[in-house]
């Protein structure tokens, strides 16, 4: 059989005694990794950095971490846009076209920045000659790290990486459901060198382009660790975005790193972080980067009255519509709540404020970006979910139980006890202190309270907003604002204790808090510090899938047992015969869902193949191959005269129906 990672060209070298002696395969693996790492830098840092260099740097002082997070977000948005444009003009999405176009994308803003007309900042020339150290010194003091803060930050980052990496390593051979769905489309783009015609609203083109360009540029199959590593990098950058946003809101490194503690260290492997990365929940991971970036850009634009930064926020928002519909949808609610709360607390001046926002918006760069968005959506590429009923089906009274709000206990168990308690407490303290303090930062207040409160409302009472979405998924978006308020609440609490207690008592209490938080926050992560070999199932499923690919043709109909097979969504990745080509028997409860009229043939053909209903279904669907979990529901097939077992390994069997 031909392997997905066969590498026929290099395998003679690897398998040669000399190749084995010098461990050539390890060298090749390292080279592959270097290709991935530098391609990530080339694709998802440099384009954004060069654009930032052109438009932002002269206008606003931002920290190196803000450079990093914005560069990544802008790069993702630019690469998506670039591929959409190339595809529109029927330019093949091959390695050389992608490489040249990205190179142009990086070079153009850098070249443009050398023209006098683009030198937006008069003293820029002088600034260029200054050292990085001097430039950093010009940053507001709260954006700079002291030696102790650097030590704390490095420790927290190390723990976060350590926990997440250990968790991801346990499940790193691709097998998860969502990742399998997405990588099917990526492989299709890779093979056809054009964007596919999507026939499902479950996925969006922006979820696949980053992987497609990475696989094209590196030549590494997505049936490897790289999709998960890519998502892990993006997820980590989103944690930095939360830190950066908290730093701008509270102007305190202590609070910002406390926020990082709640966002990236405690429950680091829970939804929507580690588990989403491992599961390949691509849209959510990307959405979790874009939402804080857009909020940070909007905040910076409004506070500093910078139209260029507002243009950046609009550009990222437009891009989010091509990446993840749920995130984009919720972002609109968050921005609306932010604006309404700000106008509400400045009711007397609201017409003036609206005027100043409009003035900021009606400047060249934001208008160009809005024009670009309209052109993209109306002419270049319309996301599939906008062209069907996906949007209207969301804007209605919720029908399912799971769409009618999360329960408090369910919410706390998924968010983390301490994060919820301190988060709610922190939010209450933040609102109370902000209102009490006459000179409070109104934008910070409106942003954080608007973000938290609207998501609370949508999670617990979606019926008031006519939003028909899985409430648990909406509640996942609360993790970030709750982490911010929890981090804030913890520092306020500790400061209060420090000023009211003697040193000894304070230190005892501090120790108790640290132990309680660590046990609760790290407890879930610790149980994953065992290394069982879970990869046998996935590798055997790949083997069976290759067999199906080689022995069946597109006219055959294949049924799989999704309820029992591990990694089954990857079968279509090997066959590449259509997203819905394979019929799937799903979980029993789904057949009994009263809100959905569902066919039962996919179940009946497996549980009762020789019954009259089963036979009827085989005739109706034309199913002639079945791929099942070994020793589950095999009994009737083994006894039947109508089926033959044609393939078997330790986990998977394939049956052929007699003609």
């Amino acid at each position, binding site marked *: 059989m031909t392997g997905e990672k066969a590498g026929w060209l290099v395998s003679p070298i690897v398998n040669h005694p000399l190749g084995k002696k010098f461990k050539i395969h390890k060298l090749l693996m390292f080279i592959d990794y270097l290709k991935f790492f530098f391609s990530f830098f080339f694709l998802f840092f440099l384009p954004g950095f060069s654009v930032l260099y052109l438009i932002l740097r002269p206008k606003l002082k931002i920290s190196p971490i803000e450079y990093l997070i914005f560069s990544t977000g802008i790069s993702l948005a630019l690469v998506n846009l670039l591929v959409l444009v190339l595809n529109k003009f029927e330019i093949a999405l091959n390695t050389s076209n992608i490489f040249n176009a990205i190179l142009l994308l990086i070079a153009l803003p850098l070249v443009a920045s050398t023209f006098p007309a683009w030198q937006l900042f008069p003293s820029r020339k002088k600034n260029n000659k200054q050292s990085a150290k001097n430039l950093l010194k010009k940053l507001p003091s709260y954006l700079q790290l002291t030696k102790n803060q650097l030590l704390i930050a490095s420790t927290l980052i190390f723990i976060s990486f350590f926990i997440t*990496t250990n968790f991801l390593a346990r499940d790193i051979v691709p097998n998860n459901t969502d990742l399998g769905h997405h990588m099917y489309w990526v492989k299709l783009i890779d093979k056809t060198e054009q964007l596919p015609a999507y026939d499902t609203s479950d996925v969006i083109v922006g979820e696949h382009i980053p992987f497609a360009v990475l696989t094209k540029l590196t030549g590494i199959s997505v049936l490897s660790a790289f999709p998960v590593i890519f998502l892990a990098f993006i997820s980590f950058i989103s944690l930095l975005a939360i830190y950066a946003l908290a730093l701008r809101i509270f102007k305190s490194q202590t609070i910002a790193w406390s926020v990082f503690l709640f966002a990236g260290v405690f429950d680091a492997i829970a939804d929507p972080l580690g588990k989403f990365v491992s599961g390949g929940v691509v849209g959510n991971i990307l959405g979790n980067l874009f939402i804080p970036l857009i909020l940070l850009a909007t905040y910076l634009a409004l506070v500093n009255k910078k139209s260029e930064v507002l243009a950046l926020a609009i550009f990222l928002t437009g891009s989010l519509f091509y990446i993840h519909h749920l995130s984009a949808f919720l972002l609109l609610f968050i921005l609306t709540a932010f604006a309404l709360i700000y106008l509400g607390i400045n009711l007397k001046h609201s017409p003036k404020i609206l005027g100043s926002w409009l003035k900021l918006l009606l400047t060249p760069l934001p208008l160009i970006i809005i024009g670009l968005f309209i052109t993209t959506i109306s002419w270049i590429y319309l996301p599939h979910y906008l062209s069907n009923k996906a949007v209207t089906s969301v804007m209605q009274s919720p029908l399912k139980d799971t769409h009618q709000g999360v329960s408090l206990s369910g919410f706390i168990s998924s968010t983390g006890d301490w994060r919820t308690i301190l988060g709610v407490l922190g939010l209450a303290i933040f609102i109370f202190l902000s209102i009490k303090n006459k000179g409070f930062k109104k934008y910070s207040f409106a942003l954080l309270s608007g973000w938290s409160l609207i998501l609370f409302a949508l999670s617990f009472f979606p019926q008031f907003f006519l939003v028909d979405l899985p409430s648990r998924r909406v509640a996942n978006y609360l993790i970030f604002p709750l982490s911010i308020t929890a981090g804030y609440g913890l520092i306020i609490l500790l400061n209060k204790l420090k000023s009211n207690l003697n040193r000894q008592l304070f230190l005892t209490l501090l120790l108790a808090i640290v132990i309680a938080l660590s046990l609760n926050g790290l407890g879930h992560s610790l149980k994953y510090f065992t290394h069982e070999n879970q990869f046998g199932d996935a590798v055997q499923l790949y083997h069976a899938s290759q067999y199906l690919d080689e022995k069946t043709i597109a006219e055959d109909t294949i049924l799989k047992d999704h309820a029992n097979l591990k990694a089954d969504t990857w079968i279509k990745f090997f066959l590449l015969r259509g997203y819905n080509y394979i019929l799937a028997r799903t979980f029993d409860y789904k057949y009994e869902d009263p809100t959905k009229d569902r066919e039962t043939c996919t179940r009946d053909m497996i549980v009762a193949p020789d019954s009259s209903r089963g036979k009827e279904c085989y005739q109706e669907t034309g199913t002639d191959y079945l791929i099942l979990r070994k020793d589950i529901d095999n009994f009737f097939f083994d006894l039947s005269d109508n089926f*033959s077992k044609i*393939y078997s390994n330790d986990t998977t069997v394939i049956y052929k129906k007699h003609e």
Partner: protein
Amino acid sequence: MLKSIPNNSKLILFLVVLGFLAGFYLFKVETDNHNSQYHKEWTAVYFLNPTKNSLAFAIENYEGKETIYQYSITEINGKVITTAEIKLSPGQKKDINLETEQLGEKVIIRYNDEEIILKRP
């Protein structure tokens, strides 16, 4: 030299190094484990031509050790037509084409206390 680097830049440097190492570790774990033989014990048996009404079959040994496979061809009533055994080294694949296959209905493969029965398609 490190002293001259601002703390903010040091943090970015630390992030890049840590990200590189964490990513490499994951990449290595995946590459090692993606291998059919690495820390795994399994066997695959399958018909080579399932659409051609043939009993030609293959055995692939990923048991991690040399394994003896005994196979028999039987008629529909269970009568054994032919029996043989082969020894496969780890990672070895063997295609088995039988001259007496026209007569048989089933292929029974036994190894390490396991039994797999393939039935003529």
